């Protein structure tokens, strides 16, 4: 067989979304790749310029549909900085609760899709089953299973329902042993090691050069986690470790994500304990009236806002399940953000695809791209 280009995508089981990986192959060996994005571009940054600060939150859930609360947190942190608002402490703990649960849910989704990529069908269902428990928890306090719209500029929408923390602990108790089960299904299998060891290797300096972050970077041996390096919310008061591996391959990324889930459980237990003992308000009192959640934003239909609020620029950067996400919010004093810019970790991770795909085989593309954990909604925004 001579060289040829094949289109993996936009409708392809490997892509986990809507994107196109153009691959030049010789037989089964990959000679060149060219990721083609944009099939899911919805212009979230543009729409945000036309919306009130709180209304942008509805878009954040759709930015990354498997890690909606993390993106809400990201945006909220940036816009609070831009608007000079300080949320109450309990709200910050609730946000950490959201983010860590979301991290487990997102990693479980990753696990399910990843094992499907290497041909394991059973753990896919296990991952989805256990993720559903977390979605149940999300539903019980945010009111939705996928598009949460829970956080607000200045806090969160509501407090936890009674009995939530006990229920959450039960879920955590259930999840811990499941992770060992997942490990037995994957790491305990010789075929898994044959498939995934020394695959998609991206060394640490290449990761840094190409802007790769998150579990991919940590699997290359760099201990870099924004929750430790640049603590936001209340992460500096929580005790956890940064997962890390040295192999820089698919197995390493698997190990890092599994360990991250275990560490998330550890964080969540601390957060739940704190929440049990520290009741308080969850929404800041000092809010401009057009930000107060129960009130209509004016300006939609001819109500011009005649008041001016201090300008500001907000930047936030959180350790999203996929890596390092950043938001840049420019507040020019109006009721809409002047410019919102998001940095998606997957965007950078996919842009480096040439570095970790060339030279492997066609059959290796699904595990490698699966270990990158591509969330197309985040890349295209």
């Amino acid at each position, binding site marked *: 067989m001579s060289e040829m280009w094949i289109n993996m995508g936009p409708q392809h089981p490997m892509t986990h979304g809507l994107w196109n990986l153009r691959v030049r192959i010789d037989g089964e060996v990959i000679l060149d790749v060219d990721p083609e994005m944009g099939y899911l571009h919805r212009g979230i940054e543009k729409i945000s310029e036309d919306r009130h600060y709180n209304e942008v939150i509805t878009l954040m859930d759709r930015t990354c549909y498997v890690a909606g609360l993390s993106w809400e947190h990201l945006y909220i942190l940036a816009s609070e900085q831009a608007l000079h608002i300080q949320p109450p402490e309990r709200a910050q703990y609730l946000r950490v609760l959201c983010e860590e649960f979301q991290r487990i849910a997102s990693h479980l989704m990753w696990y399910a899709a990843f094992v499907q990529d290497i041909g394991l069908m059973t753990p896919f269902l296990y991952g989805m089953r256990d993720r559903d428990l977390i979605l149940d928890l999300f539903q019980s306090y945010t009111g*939705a299973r996928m598009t949460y719209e829970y956080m607000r500029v200045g806090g969160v929408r509501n407090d936890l329902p009674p009995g939530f923390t006990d229920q959450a602990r039960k879920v955590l*108790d259930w999840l811990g042993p499941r992770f060992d089960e997942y490990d037995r299904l994957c790491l305990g299998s010789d075929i898994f090691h044959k498939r995934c060891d020394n695959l998609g290797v991206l060394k640490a300096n290449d990761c840094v050069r190409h802007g790769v972050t998150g579990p991919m970077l940590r699997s290359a041996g760099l201990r870099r986690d924004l929750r430790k390096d640049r603590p936001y919310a209340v992460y500096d008061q929580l005790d956890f470790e940064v997962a890390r591996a040295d192999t820089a391959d698919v197995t390493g990324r698997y190990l890092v994500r599994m360990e991250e889930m275990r560490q998330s459980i550890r964080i969540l237990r601390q957060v739940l304990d704190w929440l049990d003992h520290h009741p308080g308000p969850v*929404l800041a009192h000092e809010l401009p009236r057009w930000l107060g959640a129960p009130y*209509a934003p*004016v300006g939609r239909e*001819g109500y011009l806002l005649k008041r001016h609020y201090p300008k500001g620029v907000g930047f936030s950067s959180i350790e999203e399940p996929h890596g390092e996400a950043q938001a840049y919010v420019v507040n020019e004093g109006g009721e809409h953000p002047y410019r919102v810019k998001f940095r998606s970790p997957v965007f950078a991770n996919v842009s480096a695809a040439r570095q970790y795909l060339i030279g492997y085989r066609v059959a290796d593309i699904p595990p490698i791209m699966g270990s990158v954990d591509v969330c197309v909604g985040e890349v295209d925004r």
Partner: protein
Amino acid sequence: MAEVSEPEPRNENPVLWVARPMATAARQFAKSLFRPSTIVYPYERLEDPRFRDRLEVASGKPFGVGHVWDNYRGVHALNIATCISCNLCAFSCPDICIEMVTVPGGDPKHPKKCPEIDYGKCSYCGFCSDACPEGCLTMTTRYELSTPKRSDMVYSPQKLYDVFRSKLPMNPIRLARPENEDAILLDPPLCIGCNACARDCPTECITMLDVPKPEAKPGEKLPKRIWKEPVINDSDCVRCGTCISVCPKECLFWGTRK
């Protein structure tokens, strides 16, 4: 740099090539032989009392969300009787899926308007029910909306009222108001006392009070107006801004009351 320690290694290495995964799968097989975790949706429902009561996580058994299911944001319920036609739900909707339509019950001059929701556009964010000052627009736990016609997705106020009367569990979350909320202020020199604000105020919190007619100074012409000015009762005001929109002279504005 924060101190970190290495995660402890776990002993999950392969035994006999594939023995571990096969044993794990067999264990799950034995567990789910009689009762897999599936909740068979059309026949069993997550909101059923049997799943509400059973909260323990057990192998092979479903995990219900329990009584907190009530927080779910589903189809809206509208209590037409208490709706004050303040428009706040329509203003707060990010998807512009709420339209205020006339319902019977108002007087001819000021028709009563209630929200009509297009569920083809709705994103169930709950901003409208958060914004509703009277608590008449709430979200219920109903989530089954499939319909063969697109026009069926538009729920008229009457249909929303039917949802309300079906006594579904309501989303119990109510938001507290900020303490320093802005009030509607008056720029007195501009006011002509036309009564438009008081007439259209949904909560009737605006009263037109007489203001003394000043003595006309020599050479100065008094403005032609009714010598009344609106006084707004802040505790009753729901901050809907209707008065601002109807004011012909733009003399009402948002501000902090001293």
